[in-house]
């Protein structure tokens, strides 16, 4: 929540000015931004030592190769994986926690393992917290997303406002009607002096005679008369005070003998008057059936039920609004002004509190799913997991048994079933990891895994994987064992989410082998077979 509020608070206009300022700051403090593919160069927490390449047309490069080789032979670098990170098994959360800051960064940057438990994905709680307390301006993905959402919301409101303006314009155009009836013509004032006299008598004439801002062929007289009627509030009150209260638009009409000229000079006031009049005077303004769109307070983050459907066009800042920076103008609105100080106050208090505490401690840890932790232990050997009860490192077989038992529905049975849920998921995780993909949990998309090429910082996940067990072995046939029946509706609902998120849905079948006596994961894994099938909608009227 704090992250969402933030951009609105410390810089009320997060527009172009702020961005350019940010850019300047960044260029001043950080001379060079490290590109992603250098930060995240290693696909696994294992380093490699490639020899320099030898170019036959450059004999000197041979010496380079030799030198590098002899150096590696004489003083060999430590056997990889040289760093074994420490993890702590947390039985309550059923995940493995990594608390050391260096290990957290290493596991994240070298293969994108785990997730910060205060963060969405990358462990960056400290950065956000520092940002929040004004200790630096760091770019954090959560903030980027929040800012992007904010911008998108602004864009939508702006679009909605323009739409509404266009509707309003057509409505005004349609509402204007030339006075042609004899009684109407007679009722028209003959001179500016008549205006004051005639206006109270036209109460019944109603809303239909608005002036059209576009229609220049309208006679002066009619414009003057209609304009004077337009503000409904002015009608019951004596003319002169009402005009004063109504602002400069009406008073200009008073002084100006040529309203059409006046209109061409300042196009804003006529719309201002009419717009303000519109919600009350046009009875055909519809009831809101769907409150999907508009709030007059453009910068407020929630829509209130009592917000009128149209934006506050009548405000004096209206003229500037279409050209861009929304917040600049909306700050000037009287209504939101009341809310801003309250927010500013609420932020100011923690900010003061921080000033007292000198430094921030990173309280975030990295949490690894059982599959990730077991992959790091069993496949790469780059992690050791501590048991909190015994304060000793869990061996790989203990970890394996633990994870299998936890996932199994009946943990009492000591026997390891070949269709153990953890085992099935791990087979898929291992399968894609061993091909070079970065699988990450896909619960937010309703699937089991998301597959990234390179990692989530580089590109969006292209594939969304759901895991289905398959019992094709003759042993299962003889046992009459069938996989759980999944309905087509279940599959369609997942697929709909994926197509909306532009991901390709992949059904991964894990062919379960018959039970065996072997317990080593490496021999077990070799018995599984993984099949992938894509699934997507076929559009009959687009494939012709």
């Amino acid at each position, binding site marked *: 929540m704090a992250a969402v509020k933030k951009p609105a608070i410390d810089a009320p206009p997060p527009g172009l000015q702020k961005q350019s300022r940010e850019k300047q700051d960044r260029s001043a403090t950080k001379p060079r931004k490290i590109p*992603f*593919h250098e930060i995240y160069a290693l*696909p*696994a927490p*294992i380093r*490699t*030592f*490639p020899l320099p390449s030898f170019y036959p047309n450059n004999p000197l490069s041979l010496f380079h190769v030799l030198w590098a080789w002899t150096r590696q032979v004489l003083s060999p670098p430590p*056997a*990889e994986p040289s760093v074994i990170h420490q993890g702590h098994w947390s039985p309550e959360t059923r995940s493995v926690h990594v608390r050391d800051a260096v290990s957290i960064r290493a596991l994240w940057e070298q293969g994108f393992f785990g997730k910060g438990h205060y963060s969405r*994905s990358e462990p960056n709680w400290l950065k956000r917290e520092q940002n929040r307390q004004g200790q630096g301006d760091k770019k954090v993905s959560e903030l980027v997303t929040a800012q992007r*959402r904010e911008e*998108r919301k602004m864009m939508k409101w702006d679009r909605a406002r323009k739409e509404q303006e266009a*509707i309003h314009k057509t409505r005004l155009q*349609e509402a204007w009607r030339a006075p042609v009836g004899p009684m109407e013509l007679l009722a028209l004032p003959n001179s500016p002096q008549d205006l004051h006299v005639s206006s109270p008598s036209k109460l019944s004439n109603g809303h239909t005679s608005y002036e059209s801002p576009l229609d220049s062929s309208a006679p002066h007289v009619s414009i003057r008369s209609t304009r004077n009627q337009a503000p409904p509030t002015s009608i019951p009150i004596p003319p002169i005070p009402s005009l004063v209260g109504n602002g400069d638009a009406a008073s200009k009409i008073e002084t100006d003998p040529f309203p059409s000229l006046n209109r061409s000079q300042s196009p804003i006031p006529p719309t201002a008057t009419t717009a303000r009049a519109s919600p009350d005077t046009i009875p055909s*303004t519809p009831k809101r*059936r769907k409150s999907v769109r508009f709030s007059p307070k453009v910068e407020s983050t929630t829509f209130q039920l009592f917000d009128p459907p149209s934006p506050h066009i009548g405000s004096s800042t209206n003229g500037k609004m279409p050209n861009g920076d929304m917040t600049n103008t909306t700050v000037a609105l009287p209504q939101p002004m009341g809310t801003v100080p309250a927010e500013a106050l609420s932020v100011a208090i923690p900010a003061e509190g921080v000033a007292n505490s000198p430094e921030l401690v990173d309280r975030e840890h990295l949490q690894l799913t059982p599959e990730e932790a077991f992959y790091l*232990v*069993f*496949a790469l*050997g780059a992690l050791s997991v501590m048991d909190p009860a015994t304060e000793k490192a869990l061996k790989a077989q203990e970890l*394996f048994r633990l994870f299998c038992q936890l996932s199994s529905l009946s943990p009492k049975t000591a026997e390891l079933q070949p269709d153990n849920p953890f085992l099935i998921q791990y*087979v898929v995780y291992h399968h894609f990891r*061993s*091909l*070079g993909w970065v699988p990450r949990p*896909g619960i*937010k998309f309703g699937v089991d895994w998301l597959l990234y*090429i*390179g990692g989530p*910082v*580089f*590109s*969006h996940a*292209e594939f969304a994987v759901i895991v289905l067990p*398959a019992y*094709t072995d003759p042993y299962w046939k003889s046992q009459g064992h069938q996989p759980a029946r999944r*309905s*087509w509706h279940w599959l*369609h609902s997942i697929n709909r989410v994926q197509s*909306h998120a*532009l991901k390709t849905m*992949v059904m991964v079948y894990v062919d379960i082998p018959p039970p065996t006596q072997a317990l080593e*994961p*490496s*021999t077990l894994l070799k018995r*599984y*077979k*993984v*099949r*992938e*099938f*894509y699934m997507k*909608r*076929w*559009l*009959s*009227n*687009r494939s*012709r």
Partner: protein
Amino acid sequence: MPFDDEDLIPASLNPTSDEAPFDPEDGDQAQDFRLFTSLLTGPGKKTQASSKAIRRGEKDFESHGTRAQENVLESSRSAMHEVLGYTRQHQPRNVVRGWYFPDRWADTPMESEPTSDATADKQSGDRTTTKARGSSQGLFASERVVALESDRSTMLTSMGRVVTSAEKSSPGWLKTWLLPEEALFLVERGTLDLWWPARGIEEIFPIDEDLEDKGKLEDYELGVPLSLQAAYALFIGRDGERGKISLERYQVYANLRRTGYRVLRAASILPKSPPSRTSESLWQWLFSLLKKTNNLLALQSSYPGYGPLVRPGLYRSYVPIFEQLALVQRHKPSPLPTSESPDPQDPFKIHFLIWKSNSNFMKTKPPPPDFQMAVVDARDSSVPTLEQLDTLLLSTPWDPPEDEGKIGAGFVYKRLKHGWRNAIMAIVDRGLISYMRFGEMAFGEELLYQNTNLLDITGKASKQ
């Protein structure tokens, strides 16, 4: 920086979407009737609704009291009214009369010859063999239940067949015979006048000598015309009933026909040929032997039971690291199904072959189909098991991805998404059809870790 729960990105921003930007809310949008009116009225007549008023992508959620909006709505409404009020005229010359003879070909054996060589036929130069083969494939003589009096209708380019296996000058031997779904579709469309015969086939289709005999009989002495309801009652049945078709399959058939495809029943499955061993050269054999021993050595030496799989040591590149990680069996697609794979079982088998409308088409000798489709019921069946899906896809032709060996994330995605075989399933939920395309993938064919500079490429691609 994209992350797990990132907001939706428009397709145009996605660097890897090389297809036209597609609309996830596809296909099912309401018809724009103004398009229809411009079709129906032609250039001469002026209608209130003009095609230039068509707006797409904007939706008004509420009436905002302007006349402009009302006009748009009214023009759309009147266009719809015009379209719906359009009088369809059936030209007498287009109407064909058909007679229901369910048992005429009942004892004809199902053709045993497989259709698999539809693909091969096209290229083979031998005209006579293709003709002979083409005429009997996909005939379904025993399923054909309606005989047409004439075969002049334009609809018949992709429907109906003459039963060629019949004896010469047996009744109905030169007539075009329709399958139940074809007959029902034509009846529903208004092109076919279906009649119930009161007399035998010999009298309705007299063999040419007694032409004058037929002249004597009035129409209603021969039989009675049938209603659409009667046609439904006659042609809709359960799967496997001779001369009938299940409602789901008919709905899919009719939907595809109305959408403009050409649809034929799929005759049978591909032949099971024994896996032909490609002749290897001595070099390749030696090389493979070397590889095998290498693998064996690697297998024996490595893989400690409880890991770590990656042996500690000095590595020059990531390839040996990832090779040590390869444990789970990967799928290797092969062009020829192995002989022991079972036949696909209903409903997960190809029921219809589908061609796009613009392709050249001969119903006796169809080109290789553009799509293969299975029809399943959404309530009676469930998501297919591995065997069901596998056998279904094995009965479809081999269709490997292109751009083999091109490096780059975009190509990897493209190859994977193309797959190696594919089939469409029409999932019918009480009349509503959802088409889903399933394809055989092989992630094991894309060793991402060998692509050393993939990261650079993705980095560049994401910035585009």
